[in-house]
């Protein structure tokens, strides 16, 4: 008898529906109010994404106060990188005692953002920045060096991918 009743009246389904109903009501009555900027999903391109301070983004070379590159070519980062994407060429510069990188090539398409390079650097001359919008159309845009539009000092240019932008 009890079993027949349970089969006839779908309590179990009603239980589930009440949960979805409650959530629906909650979102329905609080959505689009100023006080709640986003609920669970953020409106990403319009609302800037929140990034934690330790976020591992793209490798960036740092300069000191005089505008000199801090890197002294100890090659520690090149050696530790698991995917071997850093290539450094040692060189000399006038008026500088420490070695100076003539070439610092970084192939971003193979970087796995592990931060081992930053950890190994004893001179605090590199960091991973907070950039995550790193997609590009051309493969060449992923090869960063000391010069050029896409270089190791500035953040990468954010690609515009929507067709309407053209």
């Amino acid at each position, binding site marked *: 008898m009890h079993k027949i009743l349970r089969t006839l009246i779908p309590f179990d389904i009603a239980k*589930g529906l009440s949960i979805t109903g409650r959530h629906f009501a909650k979102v329905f009555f609080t959505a689009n109010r100023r006080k709640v900027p986003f609920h669970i999903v953020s409106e990403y391109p319009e609302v800037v994404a929140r990034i934690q301070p330790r976020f591992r983004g793209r490798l960036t070379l740092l300069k000191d106060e005089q505008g000199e590159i801090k890197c002294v070519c100890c090659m520690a980062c090149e050696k530790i990188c698991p995917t071997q994407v850093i290539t450094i060429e040692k060189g000399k510069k006038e008026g500088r005692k420490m070695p100076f990188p003539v070439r610092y090539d970084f192939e971003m398409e193979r970087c796995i953002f592990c931060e081992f390079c930053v950890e190994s650097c004893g001179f605090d001359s590199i960091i991973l920045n907070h950039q995550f919008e790193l997609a590009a159309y051309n493969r060449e845009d992923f090869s960063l060096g000391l010069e050029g539009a896409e270089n190791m000092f500035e953040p990468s240019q954010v690609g515009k991918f929507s067709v309407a932008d053209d």
Partner: protein
Amino acid sequence: MFKNEEMEINLGPQHPSTHGVLRVKLRLDGETITHCRPMIGYLHRGVEKICENQSFFQGQVWTDRMDYCSAVANNLGWAEANEKLFGITVPRRAQYIRTMLNEFNRLASHLIWLATHALDIGAMTVFLYAFREREDILDMNEAFCGSRLTTTAFRIGGLREDLPPGFEKMVQKFLAKFPSCLEEYENLLSENRIWKKRTVGVARLGAEDAIAMGVTGPVLRAAGVPYDIRKAFPYAAYAEMDFEIPTRTEADTYARYLVRMDEMRQSARIIQQCMDGMPEGPVMAKLPKILKPEVNEVYHATEAPKGEIGYYLVGEKGSSNPYRFHVRAPGFINLQSLPKMAEGGLIADIVAAIGTLDIVLGEIDR
């Protein structure tokens, strides 16, 4: 008049319910499966070989990419296997933080299992709810180690950095709301007649078969065997934690669902204990400059969310690379029980069987 012929079909490799690129060769008699063979190897990257050509320190990044749903648990196994090889003792605070993050990872992995398993069987709502909670855990991963999925969370000898400021608040906020979220999932599924019809008695795997095939993890515990490496061979700080091993005896898909739900409750309990008893002190042991192995080989097993993940490392004298590296991946071993579960059942139930095994192909193919 009607010829009774068996039909051979492929399930996958690009099928949304095969969790990656698993191909299952099926022979069907009507709707009944008479023969089922999983075909793997579509995601093979040679992780073991790559690690043999890299130093012990660098190897960790590859363990992230094996089982990408539970990267922290993989990192823990790798770090501990190396510490065993080098004879390093990890500071207590680091052990606690590792335990806590590992349990968070278990939650994340079980949530993604719940989400996709329910979606495969046809319950869409749970998928979104479970991902909502998983998001919080990924945020914590991001706050701790800077990455959400491929965490590279630990280092040989401890941790890279201590917990970030504000982490405790995030944990407490999560723990405060998590039990009610679990209740929500259970209200949606546990009594639901469709869910029960699709799971009760489906894809049985008895204790005897499970042990014979080396199956571990929730699949084994749902068959009534209370084997959990966290209790059997405690590692990290599990020896000091108070928790239970949930088991069931029905050995079907529904039992595995209940076991995993209970496991999530226990994980939340362990996290709470870690937070309460967090010792002070350093998080990194003193290490020699270059790691050179002492003993020749180690095997270290830990309880990943999906089962026993074991790392076998052979060190060479005077070399900073492992001579041989092998992973005992839980998904790989568990998957061989799929024919046992699926043969004789209906074709619709194989989706439930694949889902309940909780496989990730990145780990199976490596």
